[in-house]
């Protein structure tokens, strides 16, 4: 009897060990690119061609980061990705705020002020989440031209708001559906208006979904490349487009350390958001895809 128990615990221990080994191996697979990116970005160029991918830097330097930020060539110009980083921020901030506000009001109207056909309107808007954007690129280019917004930051903000509304409306609608309607009905009987009810009853409970929506929109727009490359010019490119240009600029020696530093710069804002608010990030990703 004693023997049997000991053997089972040994088997269980072996199982536990394998379990952890597999999990840690998987973690290494996910971490490898980040580690290589970070290590390469602080190595002098000589160490890269001489040493191994994972060799730690002998004499770490921040020079590649400074060069990537301020001097590296992105196509014809050699001003680094710093300016494009600010472009991205100037596009992302207004686009996120506007699309979130519109989404919140839409979600509120669709759930607490239902009218005949409101569900149909919701379904109609929802379709915008699913289209491949290739199907709107050419008309969008022409429309931006007519509006005088070609290759401008305002044009990119418009594009991101237009195609972000479908998502933000979905988030808020699904959230407000679960908020009890009794308070709203009572307020309506008391004669409170549309905006007053929103301001006093819905908005105070909306913090979590606002965070989800802001994070989702921030990551989507920051990481966008398709709209950025199609609708921007040299002065207005977002950082993803500049990064791609930097990596593909083939003048002189390839500076892999600068490439990796620029990649880190482009990745840091969304990584930071993920680390600080991962829970909400996951909630945005899974919104509507897992029925709770």
């Amino acid at each position, binding site marked *: 009897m004693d023997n049997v128990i000991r053997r089972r615990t040994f088997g269980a221990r072996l199982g536990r060990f394998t379990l952890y080994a597999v*999990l840690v191996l998987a973690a290494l697979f996910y971490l490898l*690119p980040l580690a290589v*990116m970070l290590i390469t970005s602080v190595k002098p160029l000589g160490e890269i*061609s001489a040493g191994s991918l994972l060799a730690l830097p002998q004499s770490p330097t921040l020079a590649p980061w400074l060069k990537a930020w301020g001097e590296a060539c992105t196509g014809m110009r050699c001003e680094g990705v710093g300016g494009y980083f600010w472009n991205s921020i100037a596009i992302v901030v207004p686009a996120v705020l506007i699309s979130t506000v519109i989404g919140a009001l839409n979600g509120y109207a669709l759930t607490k002020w239902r009218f005949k056909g409101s569900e149909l309107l919701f379904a109609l808007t929802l379709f*915008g989440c*699913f289209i491949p954007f290739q*199907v709107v690129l050419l008309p969008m280019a022409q429309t931006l031209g007519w509006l005088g917004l070609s290759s401008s930051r305002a044009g990119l903000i418009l594009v991101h708001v237009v*195609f972000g509304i479908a998502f933000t409306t979905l988030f808020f609608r699904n959230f407000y559906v679960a908020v009890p*309607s009794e308070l709203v009905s009572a307020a309506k009987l008391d004669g409170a208006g549309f905006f007053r009810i929103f301001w006093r009853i819905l908005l105070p409970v909306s913090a979590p979904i606002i965070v989800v929506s802001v994070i989702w929109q921030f990551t989507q727009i920051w990481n966008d490349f398709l709209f950025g490359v199609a609708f921007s010019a040299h002065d207005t490119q977002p950082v993803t487009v500049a990064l791609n240009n930097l990596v593909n600029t083939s003048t002189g020696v390839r500076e*892999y350390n600068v490439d990796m530093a620029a990649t880190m710069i482009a990745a840091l804002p969304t990584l930071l958001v993920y680390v600080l608010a991962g829970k909400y990030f996951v909630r945005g990703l899974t919104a509507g895809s897992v029925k709770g």
Partner: protein
Amino acid sequence: MSLSSSLARPAGPGTRRSPAAALQAWLPKLVLAPSVAISLFFVYGFMLWTFVLSLTNSRMLPSYEFVGFAQYARLMANDRWWVASTNLVVFGGLFVAICLALGLLLAILLDQRIRQEGALRTVYLYPMALSFIVTGVVWKWLLNPGLGIQAMVRGWGFESFTFDWLVDPDMAVYTLVIAAVWQASGFVMALFLAGLRGIDDSIIKAAQLDGASLPRIYRRVVLPCLRPVVFSAVMILAHIAIKSFDLVVALTGGGPGYASDLPATFMYAHAFTRAQVGLGSASAMLMLGGVLAILIPYLYSELRSRRHG
């Protein structure tokens, strides 16, 4: 819900409403109107517009000389389009299958009361926060035969080790699979883990009392419960695959030659750099068709289950 809407509209026949009350009744619709207009114009209008363009002989700029379905015929006769479409099937199929397998495996393993579960989850999921451009650039560096993984393993003493898929026309499309799986599999893990946590423990306990082994419980009891999650995951992943554009641009540039082109890069190249607006529009419409072919069955089942639930 119906209670609140009937309360909101007390007006019967013959009731007079003040202008302010009438405005209040219209406010929700007024608030929704811009979004609906935007959706009608920028989504539905643009789809129609692209369809119209695909019926014209537009080259550098849109022209409205109609040529019927000639652009679709040209597309069907275009070797590069077939390479791109075949690549999408290979890339999409492998990407979805590997993400599902890896995601499910990691979720099941993580569900065994693991220490540091939160930290591991964070590590598995962080690539999803990155831009596909970032992912593409990093993997291009790792897969670069001269200085990347191949060089590293050769440096360990395995002199004949070869891993040069990035520059091999037959294998380049698989590098897209590696990078995309790296980026999205953690997300699938999160979906499955949420699904696993949602399963009623008592079902599993009952199966355990019946003496069923752990693998058997997973196969017979747990997996069937996860079917809706699999369905959603397939739908999201297939959607990512069809839209994949940035990853190709950053990782392979569609090359060598056009060996790793996908429809999204084909469309962009023809519509924006090769002055073939008509042909590009036709390829965009076929991409839309692909998305609809996945989406419609999904929405149908989703709506049905909602009506029953």
